[in-house]
């Protein structure tokens, strides 16, 4: 009798043990993604990406990654070539939003709609536009590119103008007031408001101003709108600034242009650009000018209007050639979609996050000595939330821009009127893209 009872007990025990373990087993069977990933980007982004991946190794010990750094702009030649060739593409690639749409159009990128879905509401709306095609997502936004006006306190002081951010904010609250300030500075100090070269103009200043007004190369129906009256008006404003000698003629990213930022006695008075310029100023372009700068919102088109715009900013994509999409997603999710990671990135490289849930952090409230103790993190975050929708980064951006830029240059060098320039650009874009 005892023996059979013992037997029954053992049986019950063993059955229950099997039941227990069989429930635990499936959960343990799902392994962490692993593998080696190749990431393409350009300097210095690999540094900020690594900063965002601080602590990644603890969570995913078996994932390794390798950075391949190209020259800026070379990625946009090499990636499509690799995608069309069907081989040689990286697992992950950094792409500026300006080129993102055209690469998404081309194909070869992994559809990450499901993976990104839970995070959509946490990301800055304007940055998602290029990541998306026909309701599907192919990229994750990384750095935001809110545009503001950097200004040199020492120049404003020399011109007899107030230098504290609150006053300057009011001083340049509209473009007309900005024009007056520029004239004052020119008269009092002989210095330029900023650089805007004529013959080799790259069109980005115009694009920033258009973005602020919600204009673009095309309108919401996809028709070419680069020669609309508002755009002409905006271009003419830039023309006024250059023709009256308020902007200098240095070509972007050349030594004369750098000198204008670095200089302690003959700098430019201001510069309208996105937040990523801050990291560049601090690290190699003008570190010796620390403490001389301030930042305010860019002027509005009219009093009380929008004072936000965007320029640049990138996103990460996963290619279809990636052998290890799970690992790739794990890396991107960790680096771009977690508050702490994007905060680390901000601390390291001044990159404004696209992940708006991170904006609560105290990190953004820090007084920045480069800007004489001004708090700039919150300002850029605030701008991020106000960037209007604009059709600048279209699927044919590279082509549209390359057709518009020479026309702008011809206008600025006095060879044609602004209306003619934009009409020519519109005609060329229509011919090239088949749009109306």
């Amino acid at each position, binding site marked *: 009798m005892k023996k059979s009872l013992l037997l029954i007990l053992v049986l019950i025990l063993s059955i229950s043990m099997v039941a227990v373990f069989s429930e635990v087993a499936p959960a343990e069977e799902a392994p962490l993604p692993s593998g080696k990933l190749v990431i393409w980007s350009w*300097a*210095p982004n690999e540094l900020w990406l690594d900063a965002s991946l601080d602590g990644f190794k603890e969570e995913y010990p078996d994932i390794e990654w390798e950075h*391949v750094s*190209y*020259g*800026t*702009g*070379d990625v946009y030649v*090499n990636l499509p*070539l*690799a995608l*069309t*060739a*069907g*081989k*040689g593409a990286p697992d992950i690639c950094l792409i500026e939003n300006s080129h993102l749409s055209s690469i998404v159009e081309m194909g070869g990128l992994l559809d990450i709609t499901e993976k990104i879905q839970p995070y959509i509401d946490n990301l800055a709306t304007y940055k998602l536009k290029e990541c998306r095609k026909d309701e599907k997502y192919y990229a994750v936004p990384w750095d935001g590119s809110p545009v503001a006006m950097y200004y040199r306190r020492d120049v404003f002081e020399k011109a007899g103008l107030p230098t504290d951010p609150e006053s300057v904010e009011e001083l340049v609250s509209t473009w007309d007031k900005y024009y007056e300030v520029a004239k004052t500075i020119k008269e009092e100090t002989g210095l330029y408001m900023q650089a805007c070269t004529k013959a080799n103009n790259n069109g980005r200043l115009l694009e920033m101003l258009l973005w602020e007004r919600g204009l673009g190369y095309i309108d919401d129906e996809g028709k070419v709108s680069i020669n609309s009256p508002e755009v002409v008006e905006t271009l003419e404003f830039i023309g006024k600034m250059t023709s009256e000698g308020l902007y200098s003629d240095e070509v972007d*990213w*050349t*030594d*004369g242009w750098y000198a204008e930022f670095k200089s302690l006695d003959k700098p430019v008075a201001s510069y309208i650009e996105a937040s990523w310029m801050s990291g*560049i100023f601090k690290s*190699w372009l003008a570190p010796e000018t620390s403490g001389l700068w301030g930042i305010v919102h860019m002027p509005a088109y009219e009093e009380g209007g929008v004072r936000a715009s965007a320029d640049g900013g990138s996103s990460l994509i996963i290619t279809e050639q990636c052998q290890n999409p799970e690992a790739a997603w794990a890396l991107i999710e960790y680096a771009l979609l977690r508050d702490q990671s994007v905060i680390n990135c901000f601390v390291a490289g001044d990159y404004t996050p696209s992940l708006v849930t991170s904006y609560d952090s105290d990190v953004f409230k820090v007084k920045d000595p480069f800007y004489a103790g001004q708090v700039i993190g919150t300002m850029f975050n605030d701008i991020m939330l106000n960037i209007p929708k604009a059709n600048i980064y279209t699927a044919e951006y590279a082509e549209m821009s390359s057709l518009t830029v020479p026309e702008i240059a011809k206008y600025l060098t006095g060879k044609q009127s602004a209306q003619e320039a934009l009409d020519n650009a519109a005609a060329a874009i229509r011919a090239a893209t088949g749009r109306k």
Partner: protein
Amino acid sequence: MAVITESTLIKTKTLDKRIFVYLLLIPTCIFMMLPFFWMLITSLKTMAEVFNVPMIIFSHNMSLDNFKVVIDKGVWIRLWNTFFISFTATVLRLFFCSLAGYGFAKFRFPGRDILFSVLIASMIVPFAVTVVPLYIMMVNFHWVDTILPLVIPGAASAFGIFFMRQYIRSIPDELLDAARIDGCSEFSIYVRVILPIVTPGLVSLGLIFFMQVWNDFMWPLVILKTPENQTLPVMIATLTGLAGTNMYTLQMAVSVISITPLIIIFLIFQRRFTTGITFGAVKG
């Protein structure tokens, strides 16, 4: 009297001529040498010194730092790639061109003249016309990012065949006939009789090919993607610094490394080089 006048006349004429000549030659030569000089000293400067005002010609801290940086970025691999590709392409081209040159020079066969005209006409086809489909073909062959597209498509250069034909034509037929009587196959005649005789021509032509492939830019730019596979010219062009700026100092360092081997080869083989060029252009 007349003799003295003539000779004085000649002397002054010669003097005028001399002044004119040197006035022309020397500035031109300075202009020719200037870029080399500037390339070299820029490669020894720092970026800040490149565009300094006032102009710095000889930097006070001349250093090989740029070369060290460039070595870190893998310039030796690129140098090896460039050399390997140039050498392989040259050998292949010399082989095919001498073979075809022999065929055209020493054989009579139906259609020879027509085929030769096609050869000449093919030299007019600019690379621009074929580059796009050629690239797509390379994609389909899975040859992208390998050295094959750089070596195989150009392997039979029409210019080279023309050159070799002219050269081989001057070989007396008796030599070939004698070899044939001895029972040599056509191919071994090529190897044993033709090749040894045309070796000087091969050297000249080879130098030209080597230089052309070494300096080629656009095609390697399009084909070679991975940094480890690239050639020196491609490296020079893609050596951009932060935000797309040109790191001129580094570019100059790589440039120096790129042109030095060619200049050395040229200086050694000068005569062969110039013979090669003139032979192809003038004779025939």
